[in-house]
């Protein structure tokens, strides 16, 4: 069996605590707390969760922007943790990142051709003619006109800028794109065009995708597998259809139920009862004991307040569906929310 393209094993990332100065409160933010996740060749894995769940930190760990506090990150079977910056370079080429804000992630002083060519320069790839050819090829893959290559980022709309950012990521011909909320800054009518672009990259080039999003409705359109994060943990992971058909973690159920529905009419009192998630995400400086979700969980029992559940198989589903809930089988049996 060949090694997966990307393998995170028990990855932990802690940051030194938030408050400094007069109101200092020492502590550690447990941003990612023991995550194991693989992305296969050509596979699209989505990571969903709310703000503060650790999904962006996970994305940055996957591309090597942060070193993990503990655990291993392997690309094509090679643990990149111990590598020198120089030895790391060829692996960085295989994994490229796309950020949420296409206004902040493009250098305003460079024309598009130079933005796209910069990774080639950094990695010392190709001569002048070869670089030009690859720039045009990447531009074509994202449907940018060759005539637009001499323009500057401010001359483009948000959707076009996101295309430029994607072209820049593609130019190194990576095996994996890590996209952190790539649609969130775009207008509704533009989002779908960018989503279609990701699907085309997957179909035409076999590129794998680690797609970070807060929006389950978007994820439903693109993911092969979905991992749900809460307070630094993966609480459920499943093939897309299993996750929506038989969510086995109460948090996943609540997330699905909270996605607004078009055409159901005005929310009635029933909607409130259905959403039924009380309270806020706990402070990551002071995570709860036991299951991280128990303070908000409608099913929490004494066991949940004492023992943190592990990510384990869901009996009702096929292989690959796992949830970190003591009552995962009973929850999955409830069916779609």
């Amino acid at each position, binding site marked *: 069996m060949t090694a997966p393209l990307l393998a995170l094993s028990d990855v932990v990332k802690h940051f030194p605590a938030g408050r400094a100065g007069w109101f200092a409160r020492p502590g550690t933010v447990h941003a990612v707390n023991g995550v194991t996740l693989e992305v296969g060749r050509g596979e699209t894995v989505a990571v969903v969760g709310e*703000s503060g769940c650790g999904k962006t930190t996970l994305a940055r760990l996957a591309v090597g922007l942060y070193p993990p506090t503990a655990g291993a990150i392997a690309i094509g079977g090679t643990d990149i943790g111990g590598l020198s910056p120089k030895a790391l370079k060829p692996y960085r080429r295989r994994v490229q990142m796309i950020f949420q804000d296409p206004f902040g992630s493009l250098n305003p002083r460079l024309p598009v051709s130079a933005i796209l060519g910069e990774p080639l320069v950094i990695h010392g790839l190709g001569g002048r003619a070869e670089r030009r050819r690859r720039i045009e090829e990447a531009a074509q893959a994202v449907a940018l006109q060759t005539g637009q290559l001499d323009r500057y980022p401010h001359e483009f709309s948000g959707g076009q800028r996101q295309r430029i950012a994607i072209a820049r990521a593609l130019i190194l011909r990576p095996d994996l794109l890590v996209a952190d909320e790539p649609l969130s800054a775009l207008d509704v009518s533009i*989002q779908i065009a960018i989503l279609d672009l990701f699907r085309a990259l997957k179909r035409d080039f076999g590129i794998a995708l680690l797609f970070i999003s807060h929006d*389950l409705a978007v994820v439903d359109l693109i993911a092969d597998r979905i991992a749900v994060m809460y307070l630094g943990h993966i609480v459920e992971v499943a093939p897309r259809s299993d996750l929506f058909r038989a969510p086995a973690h109460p948090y996943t159920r609540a997330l699905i139920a909270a996605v*607004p529905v078009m055409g*159901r009419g*005005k929310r009635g009192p029933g909607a409130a009862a259905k959403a039924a998630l009380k309270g806020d995400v706990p402070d990551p400086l002071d995570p709860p004991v036991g299951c991280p979700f128990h303070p908000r969980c409608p099913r929490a029992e004494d066991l949940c307040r004492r023992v943190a559940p592990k990510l384990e198989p869901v009996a009702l589903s096929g292989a690959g569906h796992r949830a970190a809930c003591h009552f995962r089988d009973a929850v999955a049996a409830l069916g779609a929310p």
Partner: protein
Amino acid sequence: MSDGTEPLVAVRDLLVEFPVEGGVVRAVDVVSYDIAARRTLGVVGESGSGKSVAALALLRLIAPPGRIASGSIRLGDLDLLTLDEEDMRRVRGQRIAMIFQEPMTALNPVFTVGAQIAEVFRLHRGLAPRAAFDEAVAMLDRVGIPAPASRAHDYPHELSGGMRQRAMIAMALAARPDLLVADEPTTALDVTIQAQILDLMLELQAEFGMAVLFISHNLAVVSEVADDIMVMYAGRIVERAPADALIARPLHPYTQGLIAAVPRLAARDGGAGELHAIPGNVPNPLALPPGCRFSDRCPLADDGCRAAEPALIDVGGGRQVACFKARP
């Protein structure tokens, strides 16, 4: 509106202009609409559609050099555009209140939330400081803030995003306004918190009886709270209809495009699987296409659409649409 009663707010031929380099942008370009008492009017549009400017104009909060160039806004007997600044200040807060996407734009960071809400009770209801603070605590309790008596002494930055949104709603509703203008009130929130805030707004509306102008780019969210929905595009209203009718049978090609572009959960809501992007981009406000402003992106556009701009006309059933091709 259609039941023959007087609207709470009547906006007529409103024009809001912003001078920019190279011309004047008509952010809201001669629009007329009514807001009925006790009802929720949703306003949907993309960036640059004019939806937020139309809302700020109701409170006369257009930042210079932008200005309301012409038109009228009536609130009951008051003609808001002719009031002096002091009378207008009384209208803000007392008759019309506003909440925003980012609560920190409305909450003062150097005062406790209790003190800020108490100030509304002192200014608009003339309560003594002690009584005003007690009312503020009661209001925090009403919007679902746990331990309100101690939370009232917190500064805004000490509250979570969802709690801040609740505190802002408490402040907005403290003077029992007739109209609450909510500009993307849940956009910055996580979905589970968004659901809580939407439920809270509906509950408070039922209890206090105010009208709500709910502005969002998210048609699905709007459809969950609104009685009527108004769709804006490039400074104009292109369609208005009862919410259910608009979603079930959109008449304007832009509304149809927006609905087709909203991702749905296939397993739960049935649905699409396939989504359709609207081709092209929102037009540059200084270089609008001739005729209908949507004509350069519209699948149905013909020479007639590029020659003249369709007016917003009544098509029955409480619906209005601005399209030559729309057939009710």
